């Protein structure tokens, strides 16, 4: 399993430089790793631990807490259908059943061709567009069953590539460098004030 590429190591170092404590960059760094491989490999997480000078267990401890981080191979497109309250009363459960039928898998599973992973999500903050789903965290709102099928076909055909990059890519914007002194706060100092 791969470690981070040199380019991604540089991205991680740029992230670490933005915080008074480098460890604060861990979650963004996990996103970089997930962008590289589509999920989080053990070797990759070990590499992050080395960069941050923490134990691999600490990296895993953080990674495992957050739902967006996937330790298993995940489809090119993660389809997350909202099952929150506003969506539920406007047909979310039926939409999830329909999605299971269209994709031929149960929620939580990945299609055999590795294209789609289906998930049932909590409120996606798009309740005004209920029912809704996301493909790799990009929104599709007010969806009918036909809309869902069309989007899946479009994703498969690659016509939505501009809007929906592969799973793991959260943001395509290169963030600016901080210009002021981060005023490092050492862990020792934190321990003293606690």
């Amino acid at each position, binding site marked *: 399993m791969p470690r981070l590429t040199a380019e991604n190591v540089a991205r991680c170092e740029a992230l670490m430089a933005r915080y008074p404590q480098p460890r604060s960059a861990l979650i963004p760094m996990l996103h970089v790793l997930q962008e590289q491989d589509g999920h989080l490999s053990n070797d990759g997480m070990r590499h992050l631990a080395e960069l941050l000078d923490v134990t691999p267990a600490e990296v895993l401890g953080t990674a495992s807490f957050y739902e967006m981080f996937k330790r298993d191979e995940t489809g090119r497109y993660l389809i997350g259908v909202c099952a929150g*309250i506003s969506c539920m009363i406007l047909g979310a459960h039926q939409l999830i059943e329909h999605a299971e039928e269209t994709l031929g898998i149960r929620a939580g599973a990945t299609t055999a061709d590795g294209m789609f992973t289906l998930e049932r999500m909590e409120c996606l903050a798009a309740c005004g567009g209920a029912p809704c789903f996301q493909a790799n965290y990009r929104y599709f709102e007010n969806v009918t069953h036909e809309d869902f099928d069309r989007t899946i076909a479009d994703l498969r055909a690659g016509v939505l590539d501009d809007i929906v990059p592969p799973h793991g890519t959260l943001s395509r914007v290169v963030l600016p460098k901080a210009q002021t002194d981060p005023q490092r706060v050492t862990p020792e100092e934190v321990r003293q*004030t606690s």
Partner: protein
Amino acid sequence: MTFPASVPSIVHNRIRRFDDSHTIERYVAEGGYEALRKALTSMTPEQVHEEVKTSNLTGRGGAGFPAGNKWGLLPPDVFPRYVVVNGDESEPGTFKDRELMERDPHQLVEGALICAYAVRATRVFLYVRGEMALAQERVGQALVDAYARNFVGNDIMGTGWSMDVVLHWGAGAYIVGEETALIESLEGKRAFPRIKPPFFPAAKGLYYKPTIVNNVETLSNLPWIVTNGGAAFAAMGGGRSTGTRIESLSGHVKRPGNYEIEQHNTTFRDLIFDPALGAGMRSDVPLKMFIPGGASAPWLFPEHLDTKIDGDEAAKLGTMLGSGAVVVMDESTCSVRAAWNIVHFFAHESCGQCTPCREGTTWLERILWRIETGSGREEDLDLLLDVSDNISVGLGWPPKQTTICPLGPSAASPILSSVPHFRDEYLVHVKEGGCPHGR
């Protein structure tokens, strides 16, 4: 969408009028960053703070604490100190912060900078929920452009004042929205809420340094307040609910969406039925209940429609305006299933540190599910209330806390709303072996 001119507009001012409200060109053309310039060149930090106190702007993240008072809790002369923007919006029913980040990110950046100036912060961290890819990209691009034009960074606009704004990517966990959990998460850890006291962020926040955590909408109001003065803001609304706020309206209404309304002078009936707002019930099925302030809030019923959208009025009814999310449910909605959905959410999102929350929410969910699916017993109704009482002693609102954070007690809200109010409906589930609404 067309909006009547009579409805005031502060944070939605550009979003309403322009499709490109997220760009720096539009923002600057509409007077953007002029409030920051005004603050930096003609006001002291104390004067900015004073205007915010005068405005009586209250937190829009859920707790409704006055922003000016919160800033006043910072210990004097302790540095470094931080501003953390809470963009983790994930309270079910709420979708206003996402729109503000996607459609007017510069307003937020300017607001955060004004806050940083007023409280003499060392750095700003902008924590954006991970599942919001477009918001991540829009806020990220806004920062790129704002740095390029020297609205952020070193020696901002030649004033000698410098400030960095660091965008932070979240990764999916509702509990991150709780401010001390947000801070833990920003330190690269699991989002376990910290116990208060001693960990009030203003005293011991990020890296145990003084920290101000404010919500996206709260901070988005600051450019307007600096430009127009705190008194102009306070002149809108009434009582302790001044200015406007965004209500995220969803569910069985004809026109769901985010609506900026004047607090105190608008009622829930206006919000749900006014043709320029919710425009009434979808399919014209009568209203059964509505959640007035996000999934954590106890529910209200048709007899409460004429209640003002005002924090104190909501408190009188034993509920809250919370995150400003109004979920409207018509007669076709099963109250047991609605309660189950919300309790299921809290059970799923409990961080697991406190036994009443971790165990209690799971029990509540199981009991509700067995009632909904036909294996319930009549005693289950009292059991639900009894378990709830163990998480939220006395079943009042705001709840007495048995836990580190308010998530656990919030899970009792749908139970204390629905079991007494819809007792007959629960009993039908028990007697007829399941949900009479079908699905």
